């Protein structure tokens, strides 16, 4: 087993708002290993974007962070701002959500890549532009489009520019936040293949934050599932997809298109006042009495598998749910062929 590249230990993040304290992340422990793609799955508002931004300390002053974020032996949370800048872009690249908002509208795409080389590697203008052009070619954009401005690109193309920026300095870790949101099915696949391909080629690692289980299933080595600010399950892709131990993961899989759209009632809880006990218990169809009172810990299962559910030990989920799910899973497999 390779040593972790990034390890997050017991991270708590909260925001003060007029409605109360939003506990966006609670007790997050996670590691991203060398040359690994870790998929972080969760629904809108579960705190996954906050986690991604927190790693590079990009959250606003309103956010309170506790815990440790260790990258190659350095705890990023204790670094002074000036040294933190060395990690941003160079060690850890990030593709934030919504590329049309993340690119400066008055600077050309090429110059936004070139400026990274000029700033970090002290290159001259010509050289940096040339390198930016190469980077564009690498993500499948003709370098002649480097002088165009963000509004002249389509959504998929913008996402490619974001990939080029994220990987410009060959970082050890790329954090990609919803890189496929809002794209057509075809474009979605192209972009995800592109990112994963580049990351693998560079022997880098990636934290892929997405709500799309299918994309995560295709690209990731391991998957972490997040619900209401907590990690509820972590494990190898194949294990998670074929044998989910947490009811939420199970429900999420069932809700996928082409798998019967089995529905779960209710909606994610507020992060200001989450339910007592297990956060999923009000919606869970397997809930026990204890679930509403005792908050389950993230428990080791077999091997590297961790699950935050009382039932997982007893393996009851398997018995109840194996049948319909197996069909769905085989459908997924067929499609991938």
């Amino acid at each position, binding site marked *: 087993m390779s040593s972790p590249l990034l390890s997050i230990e017991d991270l708590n993040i909260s925001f003060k*708002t007029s*409605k109360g304290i939003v506990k*966006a992340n609670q007790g997050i422990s996670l590691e991203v290993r060398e040359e690994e793609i870790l998929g972080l799955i969760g629904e809108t*508002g579960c705190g996954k*974007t906050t986690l991604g931004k927190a790693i590079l300390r990009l*959250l*606003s*002053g*309103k956010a309170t962070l506790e815990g440790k974020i260790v990258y190659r032996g350095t705890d990023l949370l204790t670094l002074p701002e000036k040294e933190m800048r060395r990690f941003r872009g160079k060690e850890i690249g990030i593709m934030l959500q919504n590329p049309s908002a993340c690119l400066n509208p008055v600077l050309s795409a090429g110059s936004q890549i070139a400026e990274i080389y000029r700033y970090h590697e002290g290159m001259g203008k010509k050289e940096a532009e040339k390198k930016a052009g190469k980077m564009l070619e690498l993500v499948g954009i003709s370098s002649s489009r480097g002088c165009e401005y963000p509004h002249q690109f389509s959504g998929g193309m913008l996402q490619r520019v974001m990939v080029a920026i994220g990987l410009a300095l060959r970082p050890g870790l790329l954090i990609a936040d919803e890189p496929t949101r809002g794209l057509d099915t075809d474009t979605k696949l192209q972009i995800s293949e592109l990112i994963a391909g580049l990351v693998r080629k560079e022997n880098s690692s990636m934290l892929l934050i997405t709500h799309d289980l299918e994309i995560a299933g295709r690209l990731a080595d391991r998957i972490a599932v997040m619900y209401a600010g907590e990690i509820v399950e972590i494990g190898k892709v194949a294990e998670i997809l074929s044998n989910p131990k947490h009811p939420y993961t199970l429900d999420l899989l069932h809700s996928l298109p082409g798998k019967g759209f089995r529905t779960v009632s209710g909606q994610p809880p507020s992060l200001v006042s989450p339910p007592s006990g297990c956060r999923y218990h009000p919606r869970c169809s397997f809930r026990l009495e204890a679930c509403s009172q005792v908050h389950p810990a993230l428990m080791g299962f077999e091997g590297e598998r961790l699950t935050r559910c009382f039932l997982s030990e007893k393996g009851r989920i398997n018995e109840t749910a194996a049948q319909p799910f197996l069909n769905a899973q085989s459908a997924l497999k067929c499609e991938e062929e």
Partner: protein
Amino acid sequence: MTEVIEKTEITEKAYLAEKRLNFGEFGKNRLAVSGLLLIAFLCILALFAPRIAPHDPLAQRLDSGLLFPSTEYPFGTDELGRCIFSRVIYGTRISLGIGLLVVAATSVAGTSLGLLSGYRGGLLDEVIMRVVDIVMAFPNIILALVIAGLLGPGFSSVVLALAFTQWPAYARLVRGQVLSLRKRAFVEAARALRPSSFYIMRKHILPNCMEPVIVLGTLEIAHVIIFASALSFLGLGIQAPDPEWGSMLKAGIPFLRTVSHLTFFPGLMIIFTVFAFNFAGDGLRDSLGQPADQEVLAR
């Protein structure tokens, strides 16, 4: 920057909900509340001027001209022996009157035209917007100056002149709002119900563009008051004996070197009044979550 995080993170809807609750936040905005209190104070001054003012603002007493402030005459007297304090207080009636009248008229007219122009589009829009452009091609104080000057001095010419120059601001602001609202799905959903366009404008569009209009209106009262007193100061607005602050200032100029309180107090009153409305308008803008856009700010 802080808001951005919340926007993306707690999702937009939570952000919107917060924005809505911000009317309550207005209460917390101490500056804005003090602006409103100042306005209330001014209104009281205007309403109860006869009770508050110690003297008749027009009564001349030539034997007690150019007196310095005393308990009898808190702000002193002018060259004709009139009590400046009383005149300043009565002046509130004129300035607030002009401000409210002009803003009431222009906001209604401008908003209606902006609504029509934005929602109907087409030729009507072209015509209205070109008229707006034409009026706005004149710096507004200059246009007001010419109109008021040629109409002849007096209360009604000042009101007319300012009303004519100030309405396009609302029309432009509202039209912009309407254009962006028209693209929103709820307006399209309402159209799918096939009501009259008047219904959609009244029920779905107007309520959603009122906030900036309220902000603009509040700030406009401040501008109108300044413009009106500038006209009077130049001698083209309200004329002497009427206690208008601008014309009082003008009357005080010859005595600037010796008895500067003649110009000092009326000027202070203008600043105080304008400040109150600017303050309240600013507070409204902050708590209604309106971006400080140039349309509202640039006046």
